[in-house]
């Protein structure tokens, strides 16, 4: 099922205009705080009324300003997982889970109570009250509650933002399960790029109330012009790869991508398993000749496609510039000093070597793409 969103809304002095399409799987709304992410999903949920535009899920029009259609929130069949979970404090976990389920006509239900309890490992929590749950447990219950209302689209508003790293790691596999087991468009609001890299198929980049770009995560993260929007610390190409050989002796794994091989710290996944790696621009160095006797394990031959002398700063007065280097058909972004560019006379079309430390590609920068797969946690 698809979700088409095309909405306009004035909020005080802030003007929001957003248009994008989400498909089965996860569409990430990514942008700095204040870029309008939460307002957009509130409009999809029917909690905020757009001034103009249309919202369509599958064949069903939820909102159409021109046609005078505005389905109330309770009739939209939109599952909403809030950042702060918003469990009903006076009800047990079981009653919370059943809240939307009971209100869903039997013919509309596509998911069973027990299945959700199994999927999210909620059985031990059922009799407890929300006040006695950890942050991660609360979010799992919130996920289950939204899912049990058999939604046509699932909205997630930074569901991991209020959790510490340990809890995030605990929740991520559950979100991946949802994504992979149900044919359901999921709109996932986030400002954490590692979540986007790990979870999302499609990326909608938002900036100041506008959609700056939409496309696949790999495509957008490899673009030089979007780096100021994605955030200077987050800049870095996302490479789709497949697990290759395991180098057991040295606890390393080879990842094959369209253009070469990456050597990363061991990944406990079977050969052939696909996954994503984000290679941060600040972790990529450039050489004009193949270096020898060097500790960096990843030396990839490629060609400079474009240079952005302004680097990550919108104004362009900083020390750094960014290069887009094609390794075969895969783009990498490298952030190096402008001085280097002058000294090495780097220019588009030049053959260069991109150097990446294996250690730079840690667990956090490894994402797992959409598609059925096993977990090897």
């Amino acid at each position, binding site marked *: 099922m698809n979700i088409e969103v095309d909405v306009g809304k004035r909020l005080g002095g802030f003007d929001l205009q957003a248009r994008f399409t989400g498909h089965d799987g996860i569409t990430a709304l990514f942008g700095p705080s204040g870029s309008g992410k939460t307002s957009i999903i509130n409009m999809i*949920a*029917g*909690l905020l009324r757009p001034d103009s535009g249309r919202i369509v899920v599958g064949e069903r029009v939820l909102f159409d300003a021109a046609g005078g259609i505005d389905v*109330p*929130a*309770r*009739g*939209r*069949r*939109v*599952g*909403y997982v*809030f950042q*702060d979970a*918003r*469990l*009903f*404090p*006076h009800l047990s976990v079981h009653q919370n889970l059943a*809240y*939307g389920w009971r*209100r*869903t006509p039997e013919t509309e239900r596509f998911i069973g109570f027990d299945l959700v309890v199994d999927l999210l490992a909620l059985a031990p929590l059922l009799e407890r*009250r*929300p*006040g*006695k749950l950890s942050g991660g447990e609360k979010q799992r219950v919130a996920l289950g*509650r*939204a899912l049990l*209302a058999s939604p046509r689209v699932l909205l997630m508003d930074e569901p991991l933002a209020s959790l510490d790293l340990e809890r995030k790691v605990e929740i991520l596999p559950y979100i991946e399960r949802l994504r992979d087991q149900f044919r359901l468009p999921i709109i996932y609001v986030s400002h954490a790029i590692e979540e986007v890299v790990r979870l999302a198929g499609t990326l909608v980049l938002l900036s100041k109330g506008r959609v700056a770009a939409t496309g696949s995560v790999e495509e957008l993260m490899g673009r030089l012009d979007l780096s100021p929007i994605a955030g200077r610390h987050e800049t870095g190409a996302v490479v789709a790869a497949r697990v290759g050989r395991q180098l057991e002796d040295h606890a390393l794994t080879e990842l094959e991508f369209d253009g070469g091989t990456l050597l990363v710290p061991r990944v406990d996944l079977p050969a052939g398993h696909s996954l994503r790696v984000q290679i941060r621009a600040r972790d990529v160095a450039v050489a004009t000749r193949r270096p020898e006797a060097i500790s960096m394990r990843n030396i990839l031959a490629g060609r400079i496609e474009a240079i952005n002398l302004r680097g990550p700063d919108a104004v362009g007065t900083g020390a750094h510039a960014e290069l887009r280097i094609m390794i075969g058909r895969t783009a990498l972004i490298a952030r190096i000093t402008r001085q280097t560019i002058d000294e090495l006379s780097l220019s588009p079309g030049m053959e260069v070597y991109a150097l990446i430390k294996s250690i730079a590609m840690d667990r956090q920068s490894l994402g797992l793409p959409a598609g059925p797969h096993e977990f090897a946690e």
Partner: protein
Amino acid sequence: MGYDEVQALKLSLKVALWAVAIGLPLALAVATLLARCDFPGKIIIDALLHMPLVVPPVVTGYLLLLWLGRNGVIGAWLDDTFGIVFAFRWTGAVIAAAVMSFPLMVRPIRLAIEAIDPRLEEAARTLGASPLSIYATITVPLALPGLIVAAILGFAKSLGEFGATITFVGNIPDETRTLANAIYTFMQTVDGDAAAMRLVLVAIAISFAALIAVELLARRAQARTHGL
């Protein structure tokens, strides 16, 4: 305790229970209106509501007699149409107690409703709940601590109501001679001091117990609405 004293106590308990039973649902409705709706004249309604707290109770009783008495506008109509009479009946004492305790019941419920996170109700909307269903399953249960406080405060206030009651329904043995009326009567009677003192102690004990109960029950309900 003598027969008269026991009768007065039983009557007071009956009147107070009925006053709470009738007043509490109304207080919930009014509290919801005041907490959740904005309308012109809200401040006037709010002020009128608190009037029984600030005007002398005898004024409230007098007005009740004026309107609900047998010759009053509403009272005459009720008598003619339904044969219902409040003046000088225990039911009139219930009305007087309910009116006098009403502002005390509205206040805690209103505060409790205002303290509810509206985002919980938003969440319920996304789960397919209708406004009425949200009110019944989220709003009212979360306002429970306020309802408990309201019920007990209303009960205690009704039990001790004197001025409005004696003005509206008089002081008729077995009909309208409530605890407070009885104490007043015994004080006027030769040798009535001991009986008056016994009832005074009973009144103090009940009021004190009610206040302790408010605190304990409200604490428990509070924990519950915080998900513990």
